[in-house]
């Protein structure tokens, strides 16, 4: 990303933050009003039952004094940005990374499953793509199934995978990685099939004039030609792998990982915890994609394809 590219991105972030900040007021109006009344503030209308009838915005207009209080609720319906930021700061920087209260600990649990799943998914994806490109039967048989596999809702499939693997004694990292792999192999298959087929007729004819064999055609032409496609797929694949690992943590009440954190926040009425985990997951995904982009740029420019990329 060039330096110029940062400003549009920051503008979007700023806009989202502004909308979020404003939305906190009406979203938390009712529970703030209830709390304020218990703390002896005068709220109109006085009866909680009547307050349910009017919108959050209407309530705020009648009681502007509660506006500052909407931002500091213990259990807000919508946490304010600064509450999420503080929770993240607190759980990332002030807790030991080995502690269960540390987001770094949970990040590592999810990340390790993500990376293992990503490696499995990418390997599988590349192998399938090579098979599809070189074998007519695989071309006809594998591709429809690969597409079908992605139409099954992962939320329905994940619990089954976890439970079935659990039944045969496989627990922990691997079941989550398998769900990650399941989501991440697909973009790799699609991208690599396209990449391996990207050399045109002329380039294939050129190799025929040298009487090159299929092996040489693969290593000298098809594989290098597919590199830009591979990196695009990897970037999609790794974020899908992260989603897969989180989804894998949800159904069985995993004790650790972003998914577990989100579930805990939800079940114990601590939205700040859920939101902090959500943002940490998003930042992790962004970092993973950024690392891949960096590797992509280095590799392609070393390959002389930097100008094209």
């Amino acid at each position, binding site marked *: 990303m060039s330096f110029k590219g940062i400003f549009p991105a920051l503008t979007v972030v700023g806009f989202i933050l502004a909308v979020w900040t404003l939305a906190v007021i009406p979203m938390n109006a009712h529970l703030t009003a209830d709390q304020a009344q218990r703390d002896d503030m005068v709220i109109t209308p006085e009866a909680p039952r009547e307050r349910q009838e009017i919108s959050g915005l209407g309530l705020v207009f009648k009681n502007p004094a509660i506006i500052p209080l909407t931002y500091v609720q213990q259990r807000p319906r919508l946490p304010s940005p600064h509450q999420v930021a503080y929770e993240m700061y607190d759980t990332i920087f002030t807790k030991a990374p080995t502690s269960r209260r540390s987001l770094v600990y949970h990040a590592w649990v999810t990340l390790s499953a993500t990376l293992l799943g990503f490696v499995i998914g990418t390997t599988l994806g590349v192998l399938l793509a090579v098979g599809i490109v070189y074998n007519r039967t695989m071309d006809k048989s594998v591709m429809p199934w690969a597409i079908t596999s992605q139409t099954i809702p992962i939320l329905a499939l994940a619990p089954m995978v976890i439970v079935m693997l659990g039944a045969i004694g496989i627990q922990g990292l691997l079941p989550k990685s398998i769900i990650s792999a399941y989501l991440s192999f697909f973009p790799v298959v699609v991208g690599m099939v396209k990449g391996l087929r990207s050399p045109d007729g*002329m*380039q294939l*004819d*050129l*190799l*025929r*004039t*040298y*009487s*090159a064999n299929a092996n*040489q055609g693969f290593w*000298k*032409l098809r594989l*290098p*030609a597919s*590199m830009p496609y591979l990196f695009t797929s990897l970037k999609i694949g790794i974020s899908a792998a992260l989603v897969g690992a989180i989804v894998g943590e949800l159904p069985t009440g995993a004790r650790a990982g972003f998914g577990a954190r989100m579930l805990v926040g939800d079940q114990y009425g601590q939205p700040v915890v859920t939101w902090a985990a959500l943002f940490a997951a998003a930042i992790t995904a962004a970092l993973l994609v950024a690392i891949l982009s960096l590797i992509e740029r280095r590799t392609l420019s070393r*390959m*002389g*394809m930097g*100008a*094209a990329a």
Partner: protein
Amino acid sequence: MSPVISATNLDLTFETNDGPVHALKDVNLEINKGDFVSFIGPSGCGKTTFLRCIAGLETPTSGEISVNGMTPDEARRARAYGYVFQAAGLYPWRTIGGNIRLPLEIMGFSKSDQADRVSRVLELVDLAGFEKKFPWQLSGGMQQRASIARALAFDADILLMDEPFGALDEIVRDHLNEQLLQLWARTEKTIGFVTHSIPEAVYLSTKIVVMSPRPGRISDVIDSPLPKERPLDIRDSPEFIEIAHRVRDGLRAGHSDG
């Protein structure tokens, strides 16, 4: 002296979804060693198809074709020819030197031999010093010269060129034509050259094969009386203009009865 390339009663029909296309009909031609043969004609006259038959990239439906006394497939395996396509088709991930090494790696030349050959052919196409550059750093004309160097690298006796300068502008084209003649004189290769351009065909060739479409066939073969030494201004000489006329007449005749 027996011909290097000889085609007898060559026929080729492509089966397409719109029915059979008669790409080549009853083609008879002999090309001798050291000839510079141009194939000229409108689109669909089979000039490229015929070149591909020589290279063994297409298989004729009937008739005989031999290259160096072998079938085209055998000749290809014996590295009888280098092929230059319309686009340079250099691999963007290889340097110019790396691109020229490509056929040498595939054919299993030794590392030191590869290096010698790369520098020799780069010299031959006037690209010495560009070995470590990537293709995108070169102009279109230079890229096409590099692709010619790639075709020359393994010392095939025959050079087959399919409209190699078709995508380049006139000035670059003139320059490359001149260089190609010098290269031909130095290397004494047999060259088969497909083109759309009458001046290019007449300027370069010792033999001009005029073809016409539907079905693709040879309508005239002209042996050029021009000397081997050809400065660019030979194109203003009466002999040159006379041959160009004959080529144009041949093309027109092919069109009216086609």
